[in-house]
C-alpha cells in the first residue's frame, strides 16, 4: 500500500507549467528517487509533497489522509536540503532541538529523542559543537538527524549529496541507503545524478520538462528505457544512438552512404512496419568484437579514434560511418588510432526507437532483467 501518493498533480507558476499531470507514489518503506536534468520540475515536486508549495491541481495523499490542504508543519515530514540548512550559530544539539522546542516539547523528551537519534547516526560526540566545525559528511548526518528526531511520516531529500566531494558522496550513498533499510521510512529523494538514482533507488522516476517519462525499478529503466531521453540519461558512458534508414528489402542502412545494409531479424522487421527512419541504440558495454557465427547481431565496422584508460577497462571512442560510437573493452591490445574494427551487438541488446516520437519501438524480448534485490544488503 502506498504511503505517499500523488494524483494528477499539476503546478504552474504564472504561465509556466512546471509539473504536468504527475501520478506516482512512494510505497510503504520504499526508497523512490526522482531524477532528471535541472529545471525538470523534480524539486518543485518534492516541495509540493513537503507543503512548501501548493499544487495548482491534483491530490496528495499520505496513507488514507488527503493532505493537499494540510500546511507544511502539520504533515510531519523530515526534510534534508542540499545545503543542509543547519543554523550556524546553534550547536548540533540546539539545531536538532529547535523545532521541538518551538512546538513546546518537554525538555526531557527532547533530550531523550536527540540521544536516540544521535546514537543511531553516531553523532553523539558532535552534539555540542557548531555546524561550522563539522566536515561535510558530518553535516549531512546531522541534517538527516534533524529530520529524523521528529519521527517523520516520510523523508524528503533534495540533492542531499551534491555538496560533497566524489569520494564522500559514494560513502554517504551507502550510509543513507543502510539507514533507510534500518528505519524503513518512506523516502522521496531528488537528484540530478543518475548514478545516485540507480544505486540507491528501490524505484526511480525519470522526469523531463515537468513530466514523468518513466517510472520503475532501476534495472527496468536501464534495460528497457521507454524513450531516447531515458536511454541516454541513464548509464555512463551513455547509450550509443544511430539514425538508420529502413531499406525497401527491410534491411537497415546508415543514413550516409552505406551500400550494404544490414539484415535484421524478422520479428523486428514486423515492428518497424512502414517507418523509413528509425533510431537504433545500444549500450557501450554491449559492444563485442565479431566472432564469426557465434552470435547473431548487429554487425558493423567502426573506426577507432581515441582510447580512454580507466584502469580496469577502456572506453573506445570511434565512428561508425558518420556516427560517433563509444564502446567498452577490457583489452587494450591492438587498439590504436584510426584502425578499423569489426564489432557486433547481439540483437537482443539493441534498442529501437521511433525517429519521430523518440519512443521505444521494439523491446528486446529475449533480454532478461535481473531480479530485484531491493537494496536489502
Amino acid at each position, binding site marked *: 500500500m502506498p504511503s505517499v501518493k500523488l494524483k494528477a498533480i499539476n503546478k504552474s507558476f504564472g504561465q509556466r507549467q512546471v509539473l504536468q499531470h504527475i501520478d506516482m507514489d512512494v510505497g510503504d518503506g520504499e526508497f523512490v528517487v526522482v531524477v532528471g536534468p535541472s529545471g525538470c520540475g523534480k524539486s518543485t515536486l518534492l516541495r509540493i509533497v*513537503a*507543503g*512548501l508549495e501548493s499544487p495548482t491541481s491534483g491530490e496528495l495523499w499520505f496513507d488514507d489522509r488527503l493532505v493537499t490542504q494540510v500546511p*507544511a*508543519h*502539520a*504533515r510531519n*515530514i523530515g*526534510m534534508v*536540503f*542540499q*545545503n543542509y*540548512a543547519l*543554523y*550556524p*550559530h546553534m550547536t548540533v544539539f540546539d539545531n536538532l532541538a*529547535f*523545532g*521541538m522546542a*518551538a*512546538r513546546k516539547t518537554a525538555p526531557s523528551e527532547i533530550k531523550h529523542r536527540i540521544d536516540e537519534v544521535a546514537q543511531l547516526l553516531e553523532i553523539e560526540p558532535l552534539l555540542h559543537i557548531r555546524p561550522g566545525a563539522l566536515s561535510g559528511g558530518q553535516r549531512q548526518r546531522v541534517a538527516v538527524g*534533524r529530520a529524523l528526531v*521528529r519521527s517523520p511520516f516520510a523523508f524528503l531529500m533534495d540533492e542531499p549529496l551534491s555538496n560533497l566531494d566524489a569520494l564522500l558522496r559514494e560513502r554517504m550513498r551507502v550510509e543513507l541507503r543502510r539507514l533507510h533499510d534500518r528505519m524503513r521510512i518512506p523516502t522521496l529523494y531528488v537528484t540530478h545524478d543518475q548514478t545516485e538514482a540507480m544505486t540507491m533507488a528501490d524505484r526511480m522516476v525519470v522526469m523531463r520538462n515537468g513530466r514523468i517519462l518513466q517510472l520503475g525499478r532501476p534495472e527496468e529503466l536501464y534495460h528497457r528505457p521507454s524513450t531516447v531521453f531515458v536511454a541516454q540519461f541513464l548509464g555512463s558512458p551513455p547509450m550509443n544512438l544511430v539514425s538508420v534508414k529502413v531499406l525497401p528489402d527491410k534491411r537497415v542502412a546508415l543514413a550516409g552512404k552505406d551500400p550494404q545494409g544490414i539484415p535484421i531479424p524478422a520479428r523486428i522487421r514486423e515492428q518497424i512496419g512502414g517507418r523509413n527512419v528509425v533510431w537504433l541504440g545500444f549500450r557501450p558495454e554491449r559492444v563485442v568484437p565479431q566472432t564469426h557465427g557465434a552470435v547473431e547481431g548487429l554487425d558493423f565496422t567502426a573506426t577507432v579514434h581515441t582510447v580512454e584508460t580507466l584502469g580496469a577497462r577502456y572506453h573506445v571512442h570511434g565512428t561508425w560511418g558518420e556516427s560517433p560510437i563509444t564502446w567498452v573493452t577490457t583489452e587494450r591490445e591492438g587498439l590504436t588510432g584510426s584502425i578499423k574494427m569489426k564489432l557486433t551487438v547481439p540483437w537482443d541488446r539493441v534498442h529501437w526507437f521511433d525517429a519521430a516520437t523518440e519512443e521505444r519501438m521494439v523491446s528486446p524480448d529475449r533480454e532478461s532483467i535481473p531480479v530485484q534485490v531491493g537494496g536489502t544488503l
Partner: protein
Amino acid sequence: MSKFIAYGLRALVAAAMAAPIYWVFVIATGYHGAAYSIPPVWRPLFHWAPFLFVWTHTPWARYVLNSVVISASTIILVVVTSALAGYALAELKFPGNSMYFYVTLGVMMLPQQALLVPQYVVMYHLHLLNTYTGLIIPFAASTSGIFLFRQFFMKLPVSYREIARLEGVSTLTYLRRVAVPLARPAVATTVLLTFISSWNQFQWPLIMTVSSQLQPIELALSHYMQAYQSHWRELTAAALIALLPILIVFALTQRHIVSAVAGGEVTQKD
C-alpha cells in the same frame, strides 16, 4: 620619490583634519588664558582641574544622561523596527511589498528642513512636545536600518526559513532565534550609525523641547555657548564632554563605522 611626497601630503591632510579636535584638548586642559596666546599654544598641559570645575558647576551629568537615554532607546527601537520591516521586505510575499520598499526609500528623499513646521504641529497635537518620547519615537524607524537588514536577510539561505516552516516555528520565533542572531553584523552597523546620529542630534531637540530637564548634551552645549562666550577653556571643556563618548566609540569601532558608511554594513575591508 613621488611616494614620499604622497606620504607627506597624506600626513599633512590627516593632521589638518584632526587639528581642530586636537585643539579642543589643548585649550580645555591648558593653562588659564591659553586660548589668548599669540602665537597659539601647541601642547596640551593635561590640567584636568578646569574640566572638573565645568563638570560640577553645570548639571552636565543630567544632560549626558538625557543623551544616553535618548540614544539607547532610539537604538533599541531602530534595531527592532528595522529587523521586522527588513525581514518582511526580504522574505515575505505580500501585496505592497515592493511599494513599501519605495515608501522606505522615499523618507530619505524628504528634505528634513522643509518638514520642521508640520512636524512641530504633529508633535503639538500628539502632546509630544517637550517629552522624551517626542525626542525618540520620530527616529524609531530608519531607512538605512531597514535596507541593511533587508539586504542581510536576503542573503540567508531560503532553506533556513523552510526548515522552520516544516517544523512549525512561528515567524517571530524564527526571527528572534535564527534570523536576527545571524544578522549580527547588520545589528552592529545599525547600532553604531544610530548612536552617532542620535548622540549628535541638535536641531530636533532645539525645536521640540523647552525644559532644560530634557535637554540632550548638544542642546545644552549650545546654550552654554551663548552664556560663556569667549570663555574658551570652559567652552572647550564642555565640548569635550559631548565629544568624548563619540571619540571613544569611534576609536574602538572606526573600521566598522567607516565600512558601514561606505558599504552599508560591517564587513572586513581589504
